[in-house]
């Protein structure tokens, strides 16, 4: 079976226990304003372009069927409108100024990369994590990939927004750990900042808990969006419902998505340029720590 992925990142140490390889699946039903992987939203392959890497070799100009690459006095002008996403230009670019983002891959092809670091997983109790995008958007592919990984003895984790209309019971058979994003706890705000209402997400969370799944709640904390006492109280309330919760992890905002938006030719919708200092989160965490029946961490 094939699926659309946009990256395989080795030595991931923030996406579950130990040393892991994270497979990033392309396509996401949410449109979070601060998304740090903006290339993950669209289900189709996209084209990255980074002007400063261009060596001016003119090869893209020669292969573009729509003549969208032009060079004037050594400057490279790329007009995205009308682009067929044929990726011919990315294929000939020697400096990776133009780069394809997103490829159909067989599960076996992906696992052959993942298995390269098998020794590291064994030494660190690590494994494979699916992230995205939203891995559950490619439910059958994700299930197949996870099942094959489990059959090979790998520890598996899925990082998800939880927005999925399929029954999660089947996929859960092959998931050792859910890294379950809780972005906002206010219904209206959830719609405003992510583009969807949260009911499906919360129901899936409760369902996974009922069937005994191992869950870590992951809560991105975004300045001016959810760095509020109400949100932290909301997270604590949700956490108290979950008998199989292993931990709640608060992740401070980082601006790495801003540059990627520019490489995609998009204007970033959220442009805060500074990393949120984890220490700014701590006072909020301390107020709810006692109300959360699991380990609480600020990453």
């Amino acid at each position, binding site marked *: 079976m094939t699926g659309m992925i946009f990256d395989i990142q*080795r030595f991931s140490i923030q996406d579950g226990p130990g*040393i892991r390889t994270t497979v990033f699946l392309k396509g996401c039903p949410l449109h979070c304003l601060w998304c740090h992987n903006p290339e993950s939203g669209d289900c189709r392959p996209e084209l990255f372009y980074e002007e400063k890497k261009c060596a001016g070799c003119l090869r893209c100009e020669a292969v573009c069927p729509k003549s969208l690459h032009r060079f004037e006095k050594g400057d490279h002008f790329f007009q995205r409108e009308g682009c067929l996403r044929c990726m011919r230009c990315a294929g000939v670019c020697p400096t990776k100024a133009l780069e394809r983002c997103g490829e159909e891959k067989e599960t076996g092809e992906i696992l052959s990369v993942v298995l390269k670091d098998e020794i590291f997983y064994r030494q*660190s109790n*690590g494994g494979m994590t699916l992230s995205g995008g939203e891995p559950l958007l490619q439910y059958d592919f994700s299930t197949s990939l996870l099942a094959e990984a489990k059959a090979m003895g790998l520890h598996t984790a899925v990082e998800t927004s939880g927005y999925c209309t399929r029954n999660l019971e089947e996929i859960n058979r092959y998931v050792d750990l859910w890294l379950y994003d809780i972005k906002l706890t206010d219904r209206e705000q959830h719609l405003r900042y992510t583009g969807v209402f949260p009911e499906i997400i919360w129901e899936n969370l409760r369902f996974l808990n009922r069937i005994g799944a191992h869950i870590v709640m992951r809560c991105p904390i975004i300045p001016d969006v959810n760095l509020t006492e109400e949100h932290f109280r909301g997270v604590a309330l949700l956490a108290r419902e979950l008998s199989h919760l292993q931990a709640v992890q608060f992740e401070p905002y980082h601006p790495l998505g801003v540059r990627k938006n520019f490489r995609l030719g998009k204007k970033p919708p959220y442009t805060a340029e500074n990393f949120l200092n984890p220490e700014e989160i701590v006072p909020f965490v301390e107020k709810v720590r006692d109300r959360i029946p699991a380990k609480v961490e600020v990453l």
Partner: protein
Amino acid sequence: MPNLQILKDLIFESDNKACFIERERILPCLEKKYAEDNSSEKYAKIFADLLDSVSTPVLDCDFFAGRVVEEEPDPGMSAPCGVLYSIGHMSYDYETLLKKGISGILRDMENRAEELATESARRFVYAARLIAESIKRYAERYAATAAEKGLSEMARALSVVPYRPAYDFYSALQSVWLIHMIASCYVGSRDYAFGRFDRYMFPYYEQALREGKTEEELIRILAGFLIKTNEICGRATHNYKHKPIPSNSSKQYLTIGGDRPNAFSSVVLRAAELSDMAQPTVTVLLKPEADLAFTDQVFHTFSRLSDKMNVYNYEVTHRALLAKGLPEEVASDFTFSGCCALDLHYHTIRNEQYVPSPVLFLTTLHEKEYRSVEEILRAFRENLRVCMQEFADRVMGPDCPERERAYFFDSLFLSDTAKNCQHAAAGRAPYYLINFFHIGAATIGDSFAALDRLVFQEKRFSYAAFMKILDKNYEGNEALRTEIFNMVRFGNDDESVDRYTVLSAEAFAGAVDDLILKPNFFAIPSIYTLERDNTMAEIIGATPDGRHAGDPVSENQSPVYGADRKGITALLRSLARYPFERMPAGGLNLSFSKKHSPEMLKAIVLSYFEMGGLHAGISFIDRETLQDAMENPEKYKSLTVRLYGFSEYFINLPLWQQIAVLNRTAYE
């Protein structure tokens, strides 16, 4: 008990301009005094006179006696005086020193000389006695000073050691220190190493526990000893702020672990944590399954000390030495002294050559028009062999300049030469080691990869045209350079590319195999640059990997800076492809942008070793801290970074080297 902070402060306040002033004032006079003396014991007479003349200062804060008086050189003084000199870079047989004392070593020599009944043996022993007696008098003078100051334990120890055997933990350390200091500061050279420290100190540690000392007490005493090793060169750096002393910028090395780590091995690590100074570098020979608790302690300490220690895969080096034909008792005895260079513990002196591999590679390329990588590799191997054979012949042959030098003091503490009344450099010891270091391994490997693709496979350039591009230093071909830089290069776990670096390393190892050596000489090839990746670079023309003439080549076993883009696991898989079983020394420096837990470091290093990896030195590089240190050096006196094969104070480095450290690939 030592006040550790006072001892540390003294090091940080030390002056890099100061020299061991008494030595420099006395030696020129002795040189004149003995100008007409052509006897074989001239060296010993000068040594004895020097030791009898210098002061024996003891400070109130000293816990071990033995320090040299340092002041700025007098006008016109050209320190250090070369009358007493050695090449250093060796590990003495401290085990025998502690067990028998100098008197016991001398007695064995006298018996042997009687057996040999030769004039040279008789003269050797006569000179050795002059030296031994002078050390005895020197220690006794220290004992008297200590007694005057009311330091009774120190006074008692020095009335016994190093002349007679050590009798407890403290006296053993005192004995080692006095000889180590004389070797480094009086006889003179850098990088005398402490060898397999946990092995020879273990009996004294056990005895101390039996006598009721607590482990915490012993750790504190040992930390005092470790801090004292920093006195040898103060805060001087390898290639910038020299001290005008014989042991200029001498790094200190101490090796533990191996096949059978003991209870004291972990104690050394805990003392090193307490000391937390740039010296000594603690080298762990790790055999993970030998002692699981010790392995855990290693990574606990590693996560705290980072650049101040390093870990070798014991099994890889052990197997490589056996494959070289060394007997088990010698092969298992190895240690590392002087950065990442292999040493046969106790046995004899060693030599080393930093082979100018990139220069020889470019020479090879320009010799003719080749038709394949294989053809170039064969010619490269032959050019390497010729270069190394020339060096080996010099070391083995009658004209070896090192033999002209004395080494006499060294000969007393190297077991194989001492017991046969031989000079260490006379070439008659059973095991001599020559380390041959391969420089710019990844630069050469990436060059082979680029040549193969552009010239032999894609045929975009004729061989001659590509050589012209190199001769013109890529002038007018910047787009090509950029393209080459963006090719997959060594360090990204791509076997089809890594193989070029591996093949060129194998050519180096093969050239060493081809050397014609005397039966008691053993040549060890390794991948190691020291600072030659920068300093030698000035004479290296443009290389086919897109590097401009004069730019640095790859450091140690690392990829070219910035070439590894797939993360640390990919890097380590690439590195594990090196033929370490044939190249069992040298080093790898890994930089992380933030601290890792002991468990994570353990997983990374043990995975690497399981794949056949050899060595790991680790730095935690926080760019912001380093940048701030460059702007506000006074705030960062104790900040250290790992450089080549040792730890250096960052603020003492020259600007180009600070920038090089900043530019290392740092893994998140």
